[in-house]
């Protein structure tokens, strides 16, 4: 046991951890951050984020008009199908408004809504440079406040004595360390990067999933705490998954691997058969559904087929499409059965009707007739060479299983609070979100509950 234990240990190094660290340090506590990633990869999934969903009455920072608590909550209820803890959700929403100036005061800089995301200009404040620049700014601020940061410090175990954490064990550079801080904040994310755990929860198909964010969210601390009876929340088998470019790296592909072309395409499985209505709704409302749809196909892979007239209707993505002058050649290049693909496209083309009302950004009702499954919008025949293809895979964003917290971000054991343990960020987001996701809400949860956890942890440390 080291004698120079800090007042507060914060496990994790992303947005929630940093908000907690800064808040606690400003309250006078000696704070240590244990970040399992090496410095270039610090920040967990926060480094891939781009905005913060924020309630506001009147223009605020980069945000225009206003966005009320009720509208925000309604948006959340819609995406989660009502599976939301309303009390905690309202707390997060209400607190978000004061967070934005706090973020600015602590070094975060915002920018106007990005090109291609104008629909979010009222609700989401975009970080200039994205989440990594936010993380960098917070590390600068934290270090200025005297927060000690240890990288590649992998926490292996929290020792519990009844309702109190007494010791944290971690390894760093092959050496084991133990500390006994007065307060502990867990902000180390979900378990999605542990693909074995994911496969146990979801089934063997999960081995073929790509992880959109950090490879360091392996859920080590989460598992350790749940094993010791800390109260859990969220469906342990579920993760938030979206359809992304199948050529994306296994980890950390981030935003650039998204593909926005599905509504203008047909999507087939490896047998060159369609399996779902590609034109059901605009893509921002459907990309999450497609993560699951692709996960249900053989080998967990889908193939998007478009023709020349659709190529420039969507945001460019990181990998160029596979290009061919004929469908047979495209099938060859993509490893699809050529005859079957030609037949599927022919059937689709034959069921397309009048396309004169085609409108790429609105539900245009240009649909197929007599086709199963139908395509109910943007159904234009695929006829104009060259033809283009992308592969689609399931990309996991985060997992729902987490630590159950109350309005003070405090963890519980056997219906009693753990006296010196708080949680913030993805690791407790399941306390609020039961399913689904609302863009920018993860950063709201992290910021609001990070600050609460930091304040509570400091109050506890200062009182003992």
């Amino acid at each position: 046991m080291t004698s120079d234990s800090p007042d507060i240990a914060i496990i994790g190094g992303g947005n929630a951890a940093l908000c907690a660290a800064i808040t606690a340090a400003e309250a006078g506590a000696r704070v240590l951050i244990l970040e399992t990633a090496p410095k270039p990869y610090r920040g967990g999934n926060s480094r891939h984020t781009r905005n913060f969903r924020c309630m506001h009455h009147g223009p605020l920072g980069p945000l225009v008009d206003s966005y009320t608590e009720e509208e925000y909550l309604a948006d959340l209820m819609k995406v989660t199908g009502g599976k939301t803890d309303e009390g905690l959700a309202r707390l997060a929403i209400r607190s978000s408004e004061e967070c934005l100036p706090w973020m600015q005061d602590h070094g975060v800089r915002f920018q106007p809504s990005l090109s291609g995301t104008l629909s979010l200009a009222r609700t989401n404040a975009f970080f200039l440079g994205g989440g990594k620049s936010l993380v960098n700014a917070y590390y600068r601020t934290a270090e200025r406040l005297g927060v000690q940061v240890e990288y590649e410090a992998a926490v292996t175990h929290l020792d519990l004595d009844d309702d109190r954490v007494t010791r944290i064990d971690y390894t760093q550079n092959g050496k084991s360390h133990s500390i006994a801080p007065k307060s502990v904040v867990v902000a180390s994310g979900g378990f999605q990067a542990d693909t074995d755990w994911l496969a146990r929860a979801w089934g063997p198909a999960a081995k073929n999933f790509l992880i959109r964010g950090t490879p360091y969210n392996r859920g080590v601390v989460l598992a350790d705490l749940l094993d010791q009876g800390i109260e859990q929340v969220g469906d342990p088998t579920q993760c938030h998954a979206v359809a992304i470019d199948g050529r994306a790296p296994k980890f950390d592909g981030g935003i650039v691997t998204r593909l926005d072309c599905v509504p203008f395409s047909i999507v087939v499985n490896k047998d060159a058969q369609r399996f779902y209505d590609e034109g059901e709704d605009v893509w921002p409302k459907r990309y999450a559904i497609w993560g699951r749809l692709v996960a249900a196909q053989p080998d967990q892979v889908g193939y998007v087929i478009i023709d020349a007239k659709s190529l420039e209707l969507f945001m460019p993505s990181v990998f160029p499409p596979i290009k061919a002058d004929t469908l047979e050649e495209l099938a060859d290049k993509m490893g699809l059965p050529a005859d079957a693909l030609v037949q599927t496209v022919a059937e689709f083309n034959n069921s397309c009707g009048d396309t004169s009302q085609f409108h790429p950004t609105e539900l245009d009702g240009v649909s197929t007739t007599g086709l199963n499954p139908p395509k109910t919008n943007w159904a234009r025949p695929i006829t104009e060479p060259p033809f283009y293809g992308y592969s689609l895979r399931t990309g996991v964003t985060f997992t729902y299983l987490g630590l159950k917290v109350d309005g003070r971000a405090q963890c519980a054991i056997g219906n009693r609070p753990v006296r010196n343990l708080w949680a913030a960020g993805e690791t407790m987001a399941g306390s609020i979100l039961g399913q689904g996701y609302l863009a920018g809400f993860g950063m709201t949860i992290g910021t609001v509950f990070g600050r609460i956890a930091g304040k509570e942890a400091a109050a506890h440390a200062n009182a003992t």
Partner: protein
Amino acid sequence: MQMQPDLLQEARRQAEICNACRYCEGYCSVFPALHAERAFADGDLTQLANLCHNCRGCYYACQYTAPHEFDLNLPQALANIRQDSWEELAFPRAAGKAFQKNGALIALVTVLGFALLFWAARALASVGGEGFYAVLSHNAMVAIFLPAFLFPLVSIGVSLRRYWRHVGAGPLRPGQVLAALRSAAQMKNLKGGHGDGCNFEDEDRCTHARRAVHQAVMYGFLLCFAATSVATVMHYVFGMPAPYGLFSVPKLLGIAGGLLLTVGCVEMIRLKLRADRHLGAVRAFGGELAFIGLLGFVAFSGLALYALGQTPAMPILLVLHLGAVLAFFLLTPFTKMAHGFYRLAALTVDAQRKG
């Protein structure tokens, strides 16, 4: 014009990743211009590269820098293209290739400048001149410096014409030039988008150090240039030859400019030595430092000449100063000095495309 295909290909690869991300849109002029394209021709990349002021905000914010497999380093990729474009567009091209990356050659030309002036001072010794003109007659100075001044103007004119064609720019309008001058006057692209400055000498910390130092160099140079121009007018139009007193316009401009330029160059070298070289054109580092050193020496020797103009050190100082000025003029199209012209051209094209 044959730019290096591997550099272009690397910049293109990176630009395509940036175009799929767009998180950096607010930093500078590069990203809105980049996001307006779907594909990047060589000319597009050259234009983006010359718009980039190497503020490095995007590098430190980037989620895809090494060790990530995408290995993004846009400031370096664009710096390499920029450097390559200055060499390829130079007139004559061989001179661009020779000097841009070669600090030793820049130093050699400077020494040759000294030598030429020594020779001139001895061979063309003035008869009956006063002050500086006792060392080298006014006519001899004009005979040396008029061609040395006109040559770079012609050379840069040819290069900018080539640039204009290469990036596919349209007919020039005065409003576009004004917009470019406004941007350059404030060094808007080194403000970082948020106004906190750029990331240069201390990783991701935003400061105005580089912007302030660059302004000192730029305005210092412009003041010195103005001093010389005013003096030329006074000499030829009003028949008032040098030397001028302390409170004359040429001296006030020249001393202020010389001080700014000297301090600016020293500080710029210090900043560059602290910054991470791998976020710029690595191979051009020596050439850049040598150029800044030469520019700083021009300013410093000018100040020294003023301070010690009445002492026996004057003739040697005059020769050193004029030798450095000669080297500086002749090398302008082939050293970092050229960047100011390309930058203005790129900002003008950008204003044109924004309509």
